[in-house]
């Protein structure tokens, strides 16, 4: 039996291009269904159509039928589907109605008109199911990202819906938070039989959870079926899948566990024991350095006597949990925050891209936004505008309104708008949030190119795969202290959240290294 059925669904946003083009899809009841696809492929629209937000809230042109647990969404508004579908949108922060977790969880129950006894039981169950009972009295704004996302899911779950619809639930989270959320989702599905419809970009953790995968491309469903085959040739597949593809493992593995088993059984014929050593780069000039800086925020030390040199040609990855001080260090390096003690010496201009790209965007087109920085800095370099628009893969969006883009695309616009100012040092705060595979690759190339051209880049990131691919040096922060610092390979090798390739075939760090080694072996 199907939880949700789509039959010939076409949809276009008001004044926008068509977002869904003839969707025919059955979401089987009781399964975890993973929806993958690039930014702008229609994933969010598809998810929003399951409970009638599309078209009731969005407006626009809608044809075809979506039937959710036997109710037609054309005649049932989202509020009339609230008892069967729990919906959690991308930005958890904006979804809380009440300033206490427990009461926010009860919000849907009050609206459904349940009795006091039933409400109390449901709230306890929802809090326990997500493991947030100890947070019940907190304000959602005071929670960490992972806690907040789990609280939002509890709010959707309390009404005991038959299906949960989650739009990129882990895109804002650190690895620990992402694990917590996905483990909770898996448990709900296993214990309660709740159907889960999940859209994700970072598949390393989500793919092993799914029973089915749906791939979308340009508003169409291009593949459905078991996650393995669907993801086998998907560019955004987990790193181990890409590795398996390279080594000719068929079918490619989805999890580190599967890949490790395959590595033991089949191995990688023709692969040398160690990667081709890269020529050690000569240390460049010191561009910006922090000397023993201590920053106190809200009465607590956010950084304790941290020192960091950033030299020309370097890509430094700042790793560490939420709240470890990564953002604070970036702000101090960027001169946006005056340290209590210590000093920051900047030999050159330093541009900072904030974590939230929305804080920056105000122009009516992407091109105007990028050009604005040139106007502000008084540079006259029109070629730079095109250079950065191309470098970050924004050519197709150059004349669109920045606010009409997806989160990952906005992030790239913000990066282009800061980078075009010509600052040799770029500080990027969590740049891969919500980015699809193509965007991440574009970002990676742009970062490597900028560093190779004599600049330097500092990335604060949770994305260890990104750090493994482009960082020359890694710095791990914990509670405002530098916990580990040094060559990216050495630092990442010792980490609990090591990149997937390193966990399958040490000492290789990335798929690219494996490919290079194979090619070198083939030549010799």
């Amino acid at each position, binding site marked *: 039996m199907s939880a949700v059925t789509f039959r010939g669904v076409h949809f276009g946003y008001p004044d926008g291009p068509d977002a869904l083009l003839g969707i025919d899809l059955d979401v089987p009841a009781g399964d975890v269904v993973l929806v993958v696809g690039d930014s702008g492929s229609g994933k969010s629209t598809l998810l929003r159509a399951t409970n009638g*937000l599309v078209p*009731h809230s969005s407006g626009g042109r809608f044809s075809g039928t979506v039937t959710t647990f036997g109710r037609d969404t054309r005649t049932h508004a*989202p*509020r*009339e589907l*609230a008892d069967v*579908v729990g*919906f959690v*949108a991308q*930005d958890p*922060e904006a*979804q809380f109605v009440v300033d*206490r977790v*427990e*009461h926010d969880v*009860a*919000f849907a129950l*009050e*609206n*459904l008109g349940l009795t006091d006894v039933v409400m*109390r039981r449901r709230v306890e169950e929802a809090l326990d199911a997500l493991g947030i009972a100890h947070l*019940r009295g*907190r*304000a959602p*704004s*005071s*929670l*960490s990202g992972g806690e907040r996302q789990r609280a939002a899911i509890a709010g*959707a779950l309390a*009404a005991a819906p038959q299906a949960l619809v989650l739009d990129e639930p882990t895109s*804002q989270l650190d690895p620990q938070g992402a694990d917590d959320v996905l483990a909770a989702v898996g448990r709900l599905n296993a214990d309660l039989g709740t159907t889960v419809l999940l859209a994700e970009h970072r598949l390393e953790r989500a793919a092993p959870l799914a029973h089915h995968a749906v791939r979308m491309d340009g508003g169409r469903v291009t593949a459905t079926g078991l996650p393995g085959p669907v993801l086998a040739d998907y560019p955004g597949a987990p790193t181990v899948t890409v590795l398996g593809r390279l080594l000719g493992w068929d079918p490619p593995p989805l999890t580190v566990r599967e890949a490790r088993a395959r590595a033991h059984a089949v191995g990688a014929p023709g692969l040398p024991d160690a990667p081709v050593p890269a020529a050690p780069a000569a240390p460049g000039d010191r561009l910006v350095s922090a000397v023993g800086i201590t920053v106190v*925020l*809200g*009465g*607590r030390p956010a950084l304790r006597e941290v020192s960091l040199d950033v030299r020309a040609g370097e890509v430094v990855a700042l790793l*560490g949990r*939420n*709240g*470890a001080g990564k*953002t604070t260090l970036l702000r101090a390096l*960027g001169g*946006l*925050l005056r340290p209590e003690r210590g000093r920051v010496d900047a030999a050159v201009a330093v*541009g*900072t891209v*904030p974590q*939230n790209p*929305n*804080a*920056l*965007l*105000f122009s009516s087109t992407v091109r105007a936004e990028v050009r*604005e920085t040139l106007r*502000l*800095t008084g540079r006259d370099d029109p070629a730079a505008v095109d250079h950065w628009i191309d470098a970050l893969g924004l050519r197709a969006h150059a004349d669109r309104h920045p*606010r009409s883009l997806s989160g990952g695309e906005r992030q790239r616009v913000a990066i282009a*708008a800061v980078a075009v*100012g010509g600052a040799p040092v770029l500080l990027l705060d969590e740049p891969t949030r919500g980015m699809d595979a193509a965007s991440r690759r574009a970002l990676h190339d742009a970062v490597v190119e900028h560093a190779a051209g004599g600049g330097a880049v500092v990335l604060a990131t949770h994305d260890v795969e990104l750090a493994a691919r482009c960082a020359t040096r890694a710095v791990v922060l914990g*509670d405002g202290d530098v*916990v580990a610092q040094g060559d990216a390979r050495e630092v990442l090798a010792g980490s609990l959240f090591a990149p997937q390739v390193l966990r399958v075939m040490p000492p290789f760090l990335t798929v690219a290294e494996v490919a290079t080694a194979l090619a070198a072996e083939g030549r010799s």
Partner: protein
Amino acid sequence: MARSQQPEERPRPASTAAELTTAAPAADATIGTQRPWHAMTWLVWAIAATASLQIAPSPVYVALVIAIATLVVSVYGLDSPYARAYPVLVGAALVFAALRVALTALTTHGGPQVLFTLPSATVPDWLGGFTVGSTIEAPIVAQAAYEGFVIVGVVSVFAAFNAVVSHHELVQALPCAFHELGLVVAVGIAFVPTTITAIHDVREADRARTGGRPVRRGRLVRQIVPVLENGLERAITLAESMDSRGFARGGATRAEHAAAWCGAAGLLALGGAFVALVAGGSDVALALTIGGSAAVVVAMVVASRGSDRVRYRPRRLTRADIGVMVGVSLAPVALAVLSATGDDTLVWVASPLRWPTLSVLPVVALAALCVPLVRRPPALGRSAVPAAARATTPEVMV
């Protein structure tokens, strides 16, 4: 400002996974959970404080009330983003008061004690014909400052109330008929602190963009547009979240329709009463007032009865809450008694210019506003933060 918990101050990551699992819940338990006093208690406190300001507007007493309000925020405004809005609102009130002083001093003239004389211009008669500039007199400046200071006091009480009250508790305490309306208002108020955070983010992003080089031209547009657009996007997300969770599900019941008609008729009658009063028909006005008020009351009763809304764990007033309510109410009552018995220190007059005097009894009466501070639950004990350690700019870390 005095705020001991900023959103990013969640339990800091421990160095090992084992530590993390044991340390986190213990730390959570101590962070402001249940607000110590009921929303209605805080409402009574705010009304009592405002009434005290009206009865005893002398600057020394206003300063005392502001100090009490600030203390209340620093003790109870724990994890609330509204506590961050407190200094902003008080600062805005100070700016407003200063502007008012300047405008009054420049446009009001006459009297003794001229401080200095400015070049003056008289605006044409068709614009009012007053003189701008000219002599600036001390009593006029003092009087304007005095009046402005009372406004600062009222704003600080209002801001403190918002920092410590749970708006949701307040909504729950409303009659059922107003539940949805109250919720919408509470959600609207919640945009104030988030907008303040957004303004901070946007200003920083504007500086970060040029690599620290300040650019003033066009700054307003660059900063206001993102704040407005973020607010709009947030509002849409919130509306969709509320819709997805069944808000306003089921539409209006028959009782609610009846109540709506009854309420409309009542309001119409009250409006008619006002017209009748202006026109001089006092008997008609009286009849309409009685009828209109009765209709409004009936509408409220019908709507509340007809609503099948059950609230989740509404907080009940405890005896201690009642005690606090009675305690704080003593402040305006005692001040009113003092005022009636002819205590002339309560009100200050700028002419002739003299220092405001402080007498003991009104101070004792105002001390009653501290009653909510006297009994503090132990879980909320850790709130004192050294002033030097506080950050002036809140950090946002998602």
